[in-house]
């Protein structure tokens, strides 16, 4: 859907090439599809009643915000009109040889979402805090996984094995925490052991990937896939043969308690969502910031990115390419391992077969959708987390949408995000290519 237009622009620099605008009809078409979907809801499935948005976590909050009530059908019709206007505007932009700006896409998405929620929650109360809190929780392993992926690809190693690293982290943390808990009786010690065990497990999987990819030049995608299968097989085997018969000792992990942060947790909306979480989530905030600053402001990050972009150039200034790659892939593994703890000791759930259920692959999608940037990958992971939790929330309040359809939602969002919206983002130039010196 790309066409060349006759519209020329004079370049600002005398030496730069003249440019023309390559316009794309992707956005208007997507807009039209979603507008029609909203229209179809309004025409073929009208619903009566008001939708109430609840913005408090509980009645005991320090600051109470009144619930917001909107009549469902009028609101949906307003949304349809707004979406139509946005679609028309995007068509006009493209015919004028201009690009559809990102803000328009964001506004469109928010308006559509509002319309859909209002329609789905007609006659019921939508607990917004729970919806957002749950979204963040579900995004935690995705964010840890995405940070692992970002570091790996930035240093030049494609990591398909994030799923395996998360699973290894979940398994190891459950077992070590259970064992320490039952032998010492100290929960603090047990949780600490669980976290450390998970990080080591993630790093070990990363080292296997790094060794095969860097030392033996095995195709990185293949190693990653094989590692996922291996970890799934191993953990499933130990689960049924060892953990299940001795569940009391080996698979009864303690749970990280919620630690509300004083003062911050009392801020309306933000407080209950962001600052009444467990230590794992606070560690996640820290990890995102540290990885971002590390990648772009430190010597470590400069060298890491150089190795992932142009390994030979890095080599010629005395940076050991393969060593840099090996240790950073291992380091990134600790982050994914930490993410794995969310499934067990982070949520107080015993380990189960294949309990990560594809989170590693969604994390990989977040890496690409986030343009290999830790902050944007985090936002992408949050979007996927939101899609997952929307499905939970709507089934709880009894929405008319079939649950099978809602279960697809996170994956649908992933596909649309990665295939449709990722334009010409360029990843690290040398990602996936082994550095072979003669």
């Amino acid at each position, binding site marked *: 859907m790309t066409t*060349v237009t006759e519209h*020329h622009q004079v370049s600002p620099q005398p*030496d730069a*090439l*003249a*440019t*023309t*605008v*390559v316009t794309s009809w992707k956005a208007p078409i997507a807009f039209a599809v979603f507008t029609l979907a909203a229209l179809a809801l309004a025409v073929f499935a009208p619903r009566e009643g008001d939708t109430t948005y609840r913005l408090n976590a509980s009645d005991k909050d320090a600051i109470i915000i009144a619930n917001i009530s909107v009549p469902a059908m009028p609101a949906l019709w307003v949304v349809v009109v707004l979406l139509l206007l946005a679609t028309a505007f995007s068509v006009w932009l493209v015919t004028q040889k201009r690009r559809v700006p990102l803000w328009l896409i964001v506004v469109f998405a928010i308006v559509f979402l509002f319309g859909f929620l209002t329609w789905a929650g007609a006659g019921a109360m939508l607990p917004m805090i729970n919806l957002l809190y749950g979204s963040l929780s579900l995004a935690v392993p995705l964010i840890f996984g995405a940070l692992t992926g970002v570091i790996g690809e930035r240093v030049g190693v494609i990591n398909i094995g994030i799923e395996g690293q998360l699973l290894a982290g979940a398994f190891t943390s459950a077992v070590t925490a259970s064992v320490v808990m039952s032998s010492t009786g100290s929960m603090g010690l047990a949780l600490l052991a669980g976290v450390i065990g998970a990080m080591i497990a993630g790093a070990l999987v990363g080292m296997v990937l790094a060794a095969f990819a860097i030392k033996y030049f095995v195709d990185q995608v293949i190693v990653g896939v094989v590692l996922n299968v291996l970890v799934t097989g191993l953990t499933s085997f130990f689960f049924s043969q060892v953990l299940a018969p001795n569940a009391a000792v080996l698979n009864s992990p303690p749970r990280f308690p919620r630690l509300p942060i004083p003062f911050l947790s009392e801020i309306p909306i933000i407080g209950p969502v962001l600052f009444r979480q467990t230590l794992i989530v606070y560690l996640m905030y820290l990890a995102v910031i540290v990885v971002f600053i590390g990648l772009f*402001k*430190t*010597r*470590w990050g*400069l*060298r890491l*990115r*150089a190795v992932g*972009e*142009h390994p*030979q*150039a*890095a*080599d*010629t*200034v*005395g*940076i*050991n390419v393969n060593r840099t790659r090996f240790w950073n892939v291992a380091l990134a593994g600790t982050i994914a391992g930490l993410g794995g703890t969310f499934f067990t000791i982070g949520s107080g759930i015993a380990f189960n077969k294949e309990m990560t259920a594809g989170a590693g692959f969604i994390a990989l999608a977040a890496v690409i959708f986030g343009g290999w940037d830790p902050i944007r990958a985090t936002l992408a992971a949050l979007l996927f987390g939101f899609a997952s939790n929307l499905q939970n929330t709507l089934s709880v309040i009894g929405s008319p949408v079939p649950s099978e359809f809602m279960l697809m939602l996170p994956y649908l969002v992933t596909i649309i995000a990665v295939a449709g919206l990722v334009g*010409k983002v360029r990843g690290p*130039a040398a990602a996936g290519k082994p550095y072979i*010196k*003669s």
Partner: protein
Amino acid sequence: MKLELRGITKRFGSLVANDHIDLTVEAGEIHCLLGENGAGKSTLMNVLYGLYQADEGEILLDDVVQHFSGPGDAMAAGIGMVHQHFMLIPVFTVAENVMLGNEATKGGIFLDLNAARAKVREISRRFGFDVDPDALVDELPVGVQQRVEIIKALSRDARVLVFDEPTAVLTPQETDELMQIMRQLRDAGTSIVFITHKLREVREVADRITVIRLGKVVGEASPTASNTELASLMVGRAVELTVHKNPPQLGDEALVVEGLTVVDHIGQLVVNDVSFEVRKGEILAIAGVQGNGQTELTEALVGLQPRVRGSIRLNGEELTTASVQRILDEGVGFVPEDRNEDGLVGAFTIAENLMLDRSAGAPFVKAGTIQRGTLAEFAREKVKEFDVRTQGIDEQVRQLSGGNAQKVVLARELSRELSLLVAAQPTRGVDVGSIEFIHKRIVETRDSGVPVVVVSTELDEVVALADRIMVMYRGRVVGIVPGTTPRDVLGLMMAGEQPEGAAA
């Protein structure tokens, strides 16, 4: 600093890339290392720079034996290198590139970009460069990128500076400026090793010349030696440097291009409103520095560019939006710029590569089956006719040297009935012996009445082959001038300046 290489030997498997090479570079001299592509010059310098480990021999700096286990050691010892393919990270700024591997930090962790910027500015001022430390390398012209490489080396206090084929990507004017910088560095006491295969540059700037052939030092020469002497030393036999060709027998206008514009995927007009025509029996050479739209222009001519406006007509047939198959059927032959990427399938045999563009039917395919006998006979005949040095027609093309591989491409393209030949960089990475042969065949094709378009970034080649010369700069045609136009005029045109009095 005095640099001495003693008995350096480097083998890759059974291939001896460097065979007991001795080389001495005195402090404050420009020492030229002259040799053909594949003679072993770059290998030698990579050994010096610690990228390769020598199998035998030693490296001495100021008479002290050195042991380099990697480029880091070589740099610490005072050796700097300006690589043929720039060792710069395109998405980093100038300052980031210069500091990489040698970073000034705050507290040992955080980058001190201000210190790096100051360093770039200080060295730029010393040599009169105009380099913005915060510019992205990707967005700089190649000439400036090369200066960034020089700044990078100097920021590490290099006292021996190696320039590996530095002029390949420069305009003649930029080349002159580079030579001036080299002299300036020499006068400041830096020892310079200048690797090249271009005779003119050697004679202009060298204090001493060492010639390498097939991995061995074959002799020293003085800068006063003539081109012919240097060339025969380099090749090992007498070489004809000029192409003999008769005046063209011009026929009708065959290829007519009008207002051709090619847009790349981000909307840049890489070819911008280009018009020209080529007559039967004429060679039009397209000159210009690499990356000024020549690649896209030739690809548009053979139907490989997706976003094209304007008109391309061959003998009256409109071919602008025609499929590649249709263009082949019209008799367009194409020698692509990068033969390994676009011209040949490396894992296929010579015979298979010779039939790549004729897999649709007779004579090589009947009822969907390859006619092995016909093909083998054809291949043997072509290998002989084009003097491809090979063990047989079943040898994989990737085993061939650059020159022989190029002859396979040429043999395939010239063995059809042609109505147009488009040859991009026909002699890049090809040995001098093969260059002579390829030039001769291109001139023969022209003499048989076929219009020929040759793209070359080598001014020597342009001048040798062209009946008319079209110079491109930034996607536009600067001018179309007669083949006899003096080099300095062409050089100015390659930098985008309109020639005075030349017909555009």
